[in-house]
């Protein structure tokens, strides 16, 4: 995480990190995404919002290789990643969290993060079975890195606990740590604040900023407007699989179409 951090922020903004070109995703009769074009720049926090069922999670699934898009291309760091195997996408530098937490429930928090660090480890079966020195070195380094990451997201006091016994908020943080362990250039967060209370949401906001400040790009799905408006650099709004608006937070907030489709006419504060 240190190499990119050295580059000044203003220089990076503007270089595309992730590009979706003409993505369409169909499930039988359902068109979940319809001819979507989207460019996310290096070093920004980009938010994807929209009504339930608009296709946001599907975008994540297409980017991370869970689905192969029916049409269109996904470009990341200059190369196409659509149709690539999921673990290859991860190795290229895209990591994600899940809308419904999907930790390895019965493994300890530490082990969860270690699985992430393993993404870049090389030791094979033989060196592991024989306990060869470079395998041991990797193991040591992995642990070191995992420890740092758990400190970074603020759960270092629960390292040895079984994942599912962590409070929900900590589970979400652990998911983030695990994703960061794969050393991603682009981090996708799917409703990270769901089920958090306002205080926790504020802490989360700080964490996401910190992640961006280590030089990573963040693509974020959220329904919580205070969070979105508080940290996003840019926002795109999806409805029925189509992009209906894109722009700065202030622009989106006052966009009539967005208000109709998504925000609703507020009776009271969010």
């Amino acid at each position: 995480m240190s190499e990119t951090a050295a580059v000044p922020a203003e220089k990076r903004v503007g270089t595309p990190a992730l590009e979706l070109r003409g993505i369409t995703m169909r499930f039988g009769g359902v068109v979940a995404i319809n001819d979507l074009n989207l460019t996310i720049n290096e070093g920004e926090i980009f938010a994807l919002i929209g009504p339930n069922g608009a296709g946001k999670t599907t975008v994540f699934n297409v980017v991370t290789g869970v689905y192969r898009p029916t049409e269109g291309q996904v470009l990341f760091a200059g190369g196409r990643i659509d149709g690539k195997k999921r673990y290859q996408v991860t190795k290229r530098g895209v990591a994600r969290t899940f809308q419904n937490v999907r930790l390895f429930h019965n493994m300890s928090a530490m082990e969860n993060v270690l699985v992430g660090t393993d993404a870049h480890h090389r030791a094979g079966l033989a060196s592991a079975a024989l306990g060869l020195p470079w395998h041991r070195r990797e193991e040591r380094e992995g642990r070191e890195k995992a420890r740092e990451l758990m400190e970074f997201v603020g759960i270092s006091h629960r390292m040895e606990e079984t994942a599912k016994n962590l409070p929900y908020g900590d589970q979400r943080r652990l998911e983030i740590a695990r994703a960061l362990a794969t050393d991603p250039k682009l981090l996708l967060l799917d409703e990270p604040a769901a089920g958090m209370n306002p205080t926790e949401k504020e802490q989360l906001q700080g964490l996401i900023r910190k992640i961006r400040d280590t030089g990573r790009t963040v693509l974020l799905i959220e329904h919580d407007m205070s969070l979105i408006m508080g940290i996003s650099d840019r926002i795109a709004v999806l409805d029925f699989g189509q992009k209906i608006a894109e722009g700065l937070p202030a622009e989106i907030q006052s966009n009539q179409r967005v208000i109709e489709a998504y925000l609703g006419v507020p009776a009271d504060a969010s």
Partner: protein
Amino acid sequence: MLLEIKDIHVHYGKIAALKGVSVEVDEGEVVTLIGANGAGKTTTLKTISGLRPLSSGQILFEGKDISKVPGHKRVLMGIGQSPEGRGIFPGMTVVENLYMGAFARKDEVEKDLQEVYDLFPRLAERKNQAGGTMSGGEQQMLAIGRALMTKPRVLLLDEPSMGLAPKLIQQIFEIITEINRRGTTVLLVEQNAQQALQVAHRAYVLETGKVVRSAEASALLNDPQVRAAYLGGGAEAVAPPEG
């Protein structure tokens, strides 16, 4: 007193999730439980419905101890729940899901079905769609509608606004008020404390398995401590502009 929970303790394996929770719900009320993640809100609701066993304590419904009554019988007595995560039967159509709500009943259900359709016209439109393919908000409506089909005396709602778009959240809270107005008692669990407190009459605050406060909802809404902990300082600041 319609529902009375007396000093209940509940465990997951060796972990204590509830360490003495007492809650009272009167006929016709909307009562809300608020609290941080893992405070034990869901566990409380599950225990009321009989999905988790009690280690100690008592649950009284209309004055009768129901602690030993199996869950499916509690539904018949009038305890309905819309669970966290909605629990839609994905392979069943919308109507079939709704009929499941009336599973244990022997009386006329068509009238109630109509009432649910009145409350959620969207469900009537999508009658024959498989539950699993409905969008998040639609599933939430279905879950609430289905719980209403059990003809509950008291309706337990577990985070009905979770994961919903802002526009839908407003609708859901309006519907809760409407349900209550039509005569159903509601016990509401919410992260969205601000709005929960606005629709509720009374509220309990849960922290790590214990009730730490209980008061009129409006009182908590204006309590600085509660505001700081559960309502978030800047909540109003970023509200979308009017009109």
